[in-house]
């Protein structure tokens, strides 16, 4: 982007996890666009507010469409795009503050409608852009600029919420393996329905969790991230619950089911009940 627009001056900090997510997203869009032979402009990125939302201006190469909207409202904006234009590849990019705090009210109703769209959530456990405040996924006791004596409330468990709300495709990963992450994002795009790829994307300035995620051989500390076993059955709800309750950060597909999308259901209705404006007008005749 910096090649394209010298006046655009936003920067992620060196080492920011969002760089890895950016590479993964670019790759997923490239592959999806080629595989389905759609124009690049049929990809629409709906971005939240925060460091992660700036993704929409940072992508290299030929540009997709984007909306950089208001804080917390990625899901309803994307719902409008996706349901009005089901031919588009609708993608949400947002952080834990945007998606899970101010925007959390939109997850349950969106999940129950199952619109066809893919959310890439960058979770760094902190409000980065506003300089280090407590977010829903900060850990209890964590010291942040807004919890100077330690966070009092419980840490939110997003994967558990997604599962109980009925999100039809749930994957979890981290930003350190962009190529692998790209595959899960691509699968989410192909999945007909609401997909959430929840990515641990550390903030090197306010909440550097790289060592916690990957562990440290030097200090003999095991990482919290672990690859999901091959024998995990993502169609098994109880197995998904067990997997999430193991603690740590699973890397892989957690859960997947195949309910109809809201547009599938609406199309059926249109076939049965379609109306013409002339007929509606006539119904008011005296």
């Amino acid at each position, binding site marked *: 982007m910096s090649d394209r627009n010298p006046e655009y001056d936003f920067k992620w900090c060196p080492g920011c996890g969002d760089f890895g997510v950016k590479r993964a997203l670019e790759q997923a869009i490239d592959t999806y666009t080629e595989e389905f032979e759609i124009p690049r402009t049929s990809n629409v990125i709906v971005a939240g507010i925060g460091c992660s939302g700036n993704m929409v201006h940072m992508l290299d190469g030929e540009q997709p469409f984007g909306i950089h909207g208001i804080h917390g409202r990625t899901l309803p904006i994307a719902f409008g795009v996706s349901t009005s234009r089901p031919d588009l590849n609708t993608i949400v990019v947002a952080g834990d503050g945007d998606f899970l705090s101010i925007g959390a009210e939109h997850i349950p109703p969106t999940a129950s409608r199952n619109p066809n769209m893919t959310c890439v959530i960058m979770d760094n456990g902190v409000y980065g852009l506003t300089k280090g405040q407590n977010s829903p996924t900060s850990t209890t006791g964590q010291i942040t600029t807004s919890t100077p004596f330690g966070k009092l409330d419980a840490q939110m468990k997003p994967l558990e919420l997604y599962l109980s709300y009925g999100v039809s495709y749930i994957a979890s990963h981290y930003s350190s393996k962009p190529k692998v992450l790209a595959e899960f994002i691509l699968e989410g795009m192909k999945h007909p329905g609401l997909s959430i790829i929840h990515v641990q994307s550390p903030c090197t300035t306010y909440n550097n969790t790289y060592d916690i995620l990957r562990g440290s051989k030097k200090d003999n500390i095991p990482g919290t991230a672990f690859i999901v076993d091959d024998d995990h059955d993502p169609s098994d709800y109880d197995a998904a619950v067990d997997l999430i309750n193991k603690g740590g950060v699973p890397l892989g597909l957690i859960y997947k089911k195949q309910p109809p999308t809201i547009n599938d259901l609406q199309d059926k209705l249109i076939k049965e009940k379609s109306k013409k404006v002339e007929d509606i007008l006539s119904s008011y*005749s005296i």
Partner: protein
Amino acid sequence: MTQKVKSKDFVIRFAGEGGQGLVTSADAMARAATGAGFYCQTFSTFPSQIMGGPASSQVRISTTPVLSNGDSVDVLVVLNQYAFDNHIQDLSENGVCIYNAQDCVPSGEGNYFGINADELAKESGNTRAANMVILGAVATLIDFKIESIENFVRERFSRGRDNDEEIISSNIVAIGLGVDVAKQSGFSVGSLDDPIAPDYEQIMITGNAALSLGALSAGLDSYYGYPISPATTILIWMEQNLISKDKFVFQVASEIEAINNIIGAGFSGKKAMTATAGPGVALMSEGLGLAWMAEIPCTVIDIQRGGPATGLPTKTEQSDLFACMFPAHGDVKLPVIAPGSVEECFYAGSLAINWAERYQGPVMIMGEMSLAERTENIRKPDIGKVVDERRNSNTGSNGYKRYQDWEGELSPMPVPGGEVAYVANGSEHDEIGDTTHLPKHHVRLTERRFAKLSLLNDSPFEIENPESDIAIMPWGATKGVAREAFDKLSEKGEKLTWLYSMALNPLPQDILDQLKQKKLVIVPELNFQGQWSSILRMDGINAVSVTQYTGLPFKPTYLSDKILEKIKETEV
């Protein structure tokens, strides 16, 4: 015993409890009257509860188009004592009240008589025909042709069922029993002149249905909404009617969702709309700012009720004007279209969604409870003539710039799937939509966002008697009653200018020129602060308001008196 007098119009009101079929009775009377060639306007008021509570519904029947609810009631039907006690003072000098003899015992004597409608319905063989007994009595009092009521009954109950004839004949018997009681009472209110039926095709429709139909006729693609009185009937209408290929309608989880849904749909190339009331407008304000900033076409209907907060959810008021014209933080002034009649609602619905496309931004329609839910017979709109205007999305090729300087025309707005892409950005941005803090971009784009309002220059307006120094300028649903007051004052010899514009922002140049020439502009409006006159004073116009904030519309004589007072105050 009252004298039989000829009258231009009659007001008939049914008062009782919610759930007693009051609206049905007023509606039946209106349909019977329009069928006979009269003009009608209904009005209802009810509490915010499903059943019970004091409610009333009325119809004004006239030989000329009806402008308001009138000053008083000519035939009052009360179904209980509370209704009698609370409505009898509205009875006109020659008016007559029919009370339900089962639940109401008025003290003393007056222009009223009792009727035991349930008993008589039983006698007719149809226990559900009590309202027909009453309609028969009402019709007799105003010397209304009984066959018009009977015609209405035939039409209503011809439903292709085996017992149609049985129901029709028992209802006609019930009407006859009501006629007999009214004749025996000896009362009469007068009679209407013969109607001159309009020589054009008509429809009978509510304000909210007309708004919805207008939008659909102009190519509405997507509707997302959340239930709230008195806008819910638009959501219901859309769920029933916005059903065809490539259209989408859905009830979402909140007004916050609805505004962001239509932003997403508008961005993706569709004509999108939502409808709400004051509390919903409050929740939508941030989204409306986004639509203004990122320049995304969408339309929001605000059906006003009493506010603030939950306020008076089932009453009428015009107190959301500040909130609709200046909803968001920052430098914003949204286009506002405020239809003044049911017929105008149709054209407001189509104009708004075309404006949104043309200037690439959000448009507000302001209705209000009294207009939304009333029924009127209007000229049938010619939907073949309604334009389906679409944004200029011709994108050219490489080097496309979405947010160029305003130079009398707007840079095109590409839609996803087309030749070139951009980012619609709620942060201040450069030509291609990237975020910027540079003063030059904030200056040029702030100016662009205001300058492009000049594209919205084709809304209907009215100017009469331009030579006077004093003008009356109502807005929205107060138009009709203000016109009635204006006509009264003109008959009395007051020389006033009549100004009306369906659009409040931007105002047509001719209206603005007129306003600036006036010594005094009197604005009748239903709010405490005088919101429209305040906005006019921002433009240097000497405007004052005649206000009312009862939750009810103005009455014509009260309004003309108040206008006269304002004129006198200024002369002193």
